[in-house]
């Protein structure tokens, strides 16, 4: 401020005039405006983009969910009817069960494996650490669609690799997309393959933030590496672990591409909707069926509420662990 125009001496070239506001006071006004408003301008790009692509669609979706909405025709206000319909919609609950089932199958083994791998990579005796850390992250770089297509081929009924392997040990070929458990397993394996490395790296970073003195002290006290893992690494890692769980929750609740491509693009997800996830059901109701766009919007908001709810549970867990 002190450097600004307010303290500058009056310009000798401009004779003072009684009526016209001098350049000085105009400068002061500009300056005041600048101080007051330009910070908003600097942050504006983010808010403009967030408003256009984040907030507006959300509000609009909420508005749509209160209507009987035909994508290419009319719409009429129906209040919360779409939401009450959700509660008695068998296929919504089916999609919810599928989503949580696949979520459990993909998150629990994935995080356990990530924990194990992170612990392994954290060991001092390991050689070529950087190589392994890079290598374990590689699957995450591959596009989801490519992963889903390749895994879809591996899990094919007639010519798939897994059925061929099974046939070597005398097991009958499995119709992977024909049953609930097998389709869940196949889809979870895609998610696991893609995200285990990512979670490993985050957990590894968390582990490296744990002070070394703790381990040294424990070692002097005669604690085995196993005991050190249980009593030092795990408790200290809890906040990182919860963070990883929240990320997996958000990803898991929105699972879409993998099951869709596993079903060869059929939005139903299996002939009896064995692996139709919530996101797929939202797409079916909101985009594929032109006349139920309002109901699809309600499903979208239901997904949002579920994510908030699950994240809240996680948040409470963090708070408890902090105490």
């Amino acid at each position, binding site marked *: 401020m002190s*450097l600004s125009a307010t303290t*500058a001496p009056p310009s000798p070239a401009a004779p003072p005039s009684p009526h016209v506001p001098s350049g000085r006071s105009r400068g002061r006004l500009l300056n005041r405006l600048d101080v007051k408003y330009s910070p908003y301008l600097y942050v504006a790009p983010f808010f403009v983009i967030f408003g256009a692509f984040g907030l507006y669609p959300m509000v609009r979706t909420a508005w749509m969910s209160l209507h009987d909405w035909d994508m290419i025709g009319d719409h009429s206000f129906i209040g919360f009817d779409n939401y009450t319909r959700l509660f008695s919609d068998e296929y919504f609950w089916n999609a919810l069960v599928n989503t949580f089932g696949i979520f459990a199958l993909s998150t629990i083994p994935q995080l356990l494996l990530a924990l194990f791998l992170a612990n392994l990579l954290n060991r001092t005796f390991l050689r070529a650490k950087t190589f392994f850390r890079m290598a374990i992250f590689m699957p995450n770089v591959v596009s989801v669609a490519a992963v889903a297509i390749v895994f879809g081929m591996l899990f094919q009924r*007639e010519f798939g690799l897994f059925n061929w392997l099974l046939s070597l040990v005398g097991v009958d070929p499995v119709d992977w997309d024909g049953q609930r458990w097998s389709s869940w397993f196949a889809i979870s394996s895609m998610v696991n393959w893609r995200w285990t490395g990512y979670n490993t790296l985050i957990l590894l970073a968390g582990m490296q933030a744990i002070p070394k003195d703790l381990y040294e002290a424990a070692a002097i006290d005669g604690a085995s590496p196993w005991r050190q893992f249980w009593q030092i690494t795990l408790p200290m890692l809890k906040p990182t672990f919860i963070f990883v769980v929240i990320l997996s929750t958000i990803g898991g609740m929105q699972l879409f591409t993998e099951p869709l491509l596993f079903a*060869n693009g059929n939005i139903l997800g299996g*002939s*009896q*909707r064995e692996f139709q996830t919530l996101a797929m059901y939202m797409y079916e109701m909101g985009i594929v069926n032109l*006349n139920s766009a309002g109901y699809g919007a309600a499903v979208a908001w239901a997904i949002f509420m579920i994510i908030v709810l699950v994240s809240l549970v996680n948040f409470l867990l963090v708070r408890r662990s902090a105490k």
Partner: protein
Amino acid sequence: MSVTTRRTRLAAAALAAITAIGGLAACGNDDDEPAAGEKPAKLVVDTFGEFGYDDIVKQYEKDTGIKVELRKTAQLAEYRPKLVRYLATGKGAADVTALEEGILNEFKPNARNWADLNPLVADHSKEFLPWKWELGKAPDGRLIGLPTDVGSLAVCYRKDLFQAAGLPTERDQVSALWPDWKGFHDAGLKYKQGSGGKAFIDSITAVSNGVMFQGNGDLFYDKEDNIIADTSPAVKNAWDTATSMADISAKAQTWSPEWSGGFKQGTFAATFCPSWMLGIVSENSGPANKGKWDVASVPGGGGNWGGSWLAVPAQSKYPKEAAKLAEYLTNAKSQVEAFKAKGPLPTNLEALKNEAFIGYTNEYFSNAPTGKIFGESVAKIQPTHLGPKHQAVKENALEPALRAFESGQADKAKAWEQFTKDAKTQGVF
């Protein structure tokens, strides 16, 4: 001094940048606003798959001086969402838009999205297959679409596999094996026996597709568009015929990797082919299998799978000229040329009688006279009323239930229950 002025300048630049982005977005769409009554410089045509219009529009450009831009989308699955976006936002649609059967019916309840062609073109009602012409009309009498092609059915079969299993291979004898669906099933059982238990057809949903259009009355909807899926005798007939074929089916869902891979592997020896499917069969089977496929007639007479219309969106700036172009593209001469180029089967009666069409033989399919075979099959298609969400009921209620039965996930009664329940929710419009 310097700090504030730099700040102010930066802020101004930021503001300018933002308004520039806004300005850019605003001027993106109105570059070709027409002056009233002026002849359009360019008409846009939206199609999916292959309509075979490339050479035809060149001629049109020469004749009229109007440039035609063909916008092709490879897959119908990508085409539909685009179209929905154009209609929902009221901009972006082409002047002439190809509508596939399922899409057309689905769009009919909102017919005002489409220009009424009645006042814009001459009366062509007598020139096309009558049922096909009727389907182009909306319930309010508006003429939405001019017929392009039809998906009349034939049976594609593998001669080498038939021979190995002791079945006849010559196309007339093969057609004689199955005057009706029972004959088809018997042939399938015989093939299974002769080939050591191999499957005969790709899937039972292919069968239901064939049976449905053989004229047993209304399908999922009655004439007033009430859903009658659970009581319709035509649907029940298709269901019973399809489910009876489960023992000779390879259970390969159409378009799945099992299905497309099955052509090369010979997991099934026969499939139902609309004319447009021939290209897909030859592509999936590969050049190595050239001459091993042949085409026979479909059991129980004609059948229909797919087919399209040309429509003019109400948002087109040149409805009159667009309608004229649609008229040109669907006339007899254009339809024969399109057939020769890419295989869509004509619906124009004059085109169906055309020498070049009838005499056409397909080299990949052992020189089968596909023009003649499909031409005869077209004549046998029974006019059928299709409700607004016919496609959704077929694809998301009937076929999943059939697949559930076929793969043993549900018994016949349970699968039927699944179908009738889903038909009600899928069929609402």
